[in-house]
């Protein structure tokens, strides 16, 4: 895995984002069952589901915008707000809990000045927690944009923040 995978941010390029959603819909099926896959693709392409995309998706699937909105806000993987450049995910599964995963999450919250589920004002970091990634032998376990950090400690928290604070942001 590359250390800093790139993700496009719709806000930076509204026109391109519009293109993306249009392209995604053109390729996708138009039955209700295709909704989840469409939302996944938009989330991956834009790093969020822009609210402006909801009516277009609804039209494409012959649904009401409120139905699409209801589905997308139900799932944790989809977000209307754009995420930070780097998403820090702290595992809080049973094994990580027993080994102090909560302390790791709290340390990130303190250092970043945000709560889990939030993004820093400079859009650099998003902090999230997840209920078990199944890496129970090597917890507490942290993932940053797909890069794994096993056996996390207070030192890991600082090392991660230092490394990504100075890192080149995604294009």
């Amino acid at each position, binding site marked *: 895995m590359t250390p800093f995978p790139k993700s496009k941010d719709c806000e930076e390029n509204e026109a391109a984002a519009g293109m993306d959603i249009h392209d995604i819909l053109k390729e996708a099926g138009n039955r209700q069952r295709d909704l*989840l896959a469409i939302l996944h693709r938009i989330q991956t392409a834009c790093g969020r589901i822009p609210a402006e995309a909801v009516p277009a998706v609804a039209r494409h*699937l012959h649904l009401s915008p409120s139905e699409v909105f209801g589905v997308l806000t139900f799932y944790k*993987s989809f977000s209307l707000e754009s995420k930070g450049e780097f998403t820090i995910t702290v595992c809080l599964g*049973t094994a990580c809990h027993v080994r102090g995963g909560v302390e790791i999450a709290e340390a990130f919250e303190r250092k970043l000045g945000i709560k889990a589920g939030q993004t820093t004002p400079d859009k650099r970091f998003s902090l999230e927690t997840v209920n*078990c990634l199944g890496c*129970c*032998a*090597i917890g507490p376990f942290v993932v940053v944009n797909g890069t794994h950090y096993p056996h996390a400690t207070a030192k890991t928290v600082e090392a991660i923040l230092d490394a990504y604070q100075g890192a080149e942001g995604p294009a």
Partner: protein
Amino acid sequence: MRKLSHPDHLAEWKALILEERPVHAKTIAVTAGTCGRSAGALPVIEALRTEIVKRGLEKTVGLVVTGCHGYCEMEPSLIIYPEEIFYKRLEAADVPAIIGETVLKDKIVSRLVCEDPATGRPAVRPKDIPFYRKQMRLLTEANFHIDPLRIEDYILLDGYQALSRALFDMTSESVIAEVKASGLRGRGGAGFPTGLKWEFCREAHGHPKYVICNADEGDPGTYMDRSLLEGNPHSVIEGMLIGAYGIGASEGYIYVRGDNPLAVNHIGHAIERARKCGLLGENILGSEFHFDIHLVTGAGVYVCGEETSLMASIEGRKPYPRQRPPFPAQEGLWGRPTNINNVETWVNVPLILRQGSAAYAAIGTERSKGTKIFSLIGRIQNTGLVEVPMGISLREIICDIGGGVKDGKALKAVQTGGPAGGCVPASLIDLPIDYDSLVQAGSMMGSGGMVVMDETTCMVDVARYFLDFLQDESCGKCVPCRIGTRQMLEILTRITRGLGEPGDILRMEELAATMKAASLCGLGQSAANPVLSTLRYFRDEYEAHILRKTCPARVCKEIVSAVPASEEPRR
């Protein structure tokens, strides 16, 4: 690779693969499931590749990147065939020694070898290592050998032969009869007899019929389904094909948890390959049977593992669970008869057809047959996935396979069955593990999580942890679950903060009864289990928190902060 359009093509293909396969003097199989990669398997693999090329050994040494070998504690690990040398906790720096010493000179690198703590002797082969010795790896053995991205590796292990047998030597009725005779019960949690479930769906009116593989493995602390999907995806597909043939279904769905990208990737790749080979699609192996599989990726909601919620999610609706009956076998996906089984259940199916129901039913206890994969985690020496025959005692799993409690501490309890399960106290360590014995002990099999807890674990904190999880994941459709989990969590939180009141225990027991009786789906019905089972065996710990305002395990921080500084909290 050509399209298989005749049952004989499987055997011919296998012969061809064997013929074209380079003959390697040694083969190195490196574990590279999600946890292996997290532990650093990829740099090791890269170093092995470079070293093999550097020394010009491409023709004599094979390298297989496999899925998970189960021994998470020792990852990244590898096995060198044919000698079956198991090396643990590798780094890229170990690679020159592995190639230079072991592969070229047949010398064991002793620092990379496991040790048998009983004898203090090195344990070189998996079958010598205590962690593997008492296991019965019928489902997970293939993970030692298969590159999950190569369908050829599965074919070499007689993959899809069970399907061929079903399609050409058996009627669909006899497939169901065989699975019924095997005694296989659902591995997702409830333990319903699989063959019977299939029969209900087969006999239901409606067309088309669907089969679903529930791979939305969400219980914290369980990852056997992920390991099967990552390491041996074709076995899931073959199981579904056989089930679909028995039931008369023409379409299948695999609903996989999105938080497991490697599993999504491997099963998606496997479906494509199977389709290209004609193992999915129309006239499979030249028969009259048509079947195809769609992959649906979940989006991070625990309740989607509940079957009615899962089906709503596939349909693109808001994934609320609904009332049952009607059961999915009568009215499932789009109102059609649908059969849902969990990943591990599906993987058992080809095995049953390969060895016959009688041989399969010879393993296990009277009412629980076959093997079960458990994820052994928590305060245990050997964390990992273990596959054991049903009926094995908890003592054998914890002490022999697991190597005992970490740091020589005393065992307090084993939590089984995920958030919906319960705790089995140390006094029941000789309990034979099967569906019924666990229920009698106040817990359940669930999907197979096994969290070991020692004297440093606070049982009230454990109950609070699970209620916190369940409260967060409650979908909010029905009141008993939405309000009940919230109230339960608030009471537990008060207790762990030293603010518990006499009467709290009674209050929780009443609440538990209401939630169990009135909740819509399994999540709410079983949400009180963590509380009830800890109350059953560890009532004194609750009382210590409530009446004496102490946490015996010294875990609950707010209470602990009130004790003298000489007794520092553990965390």
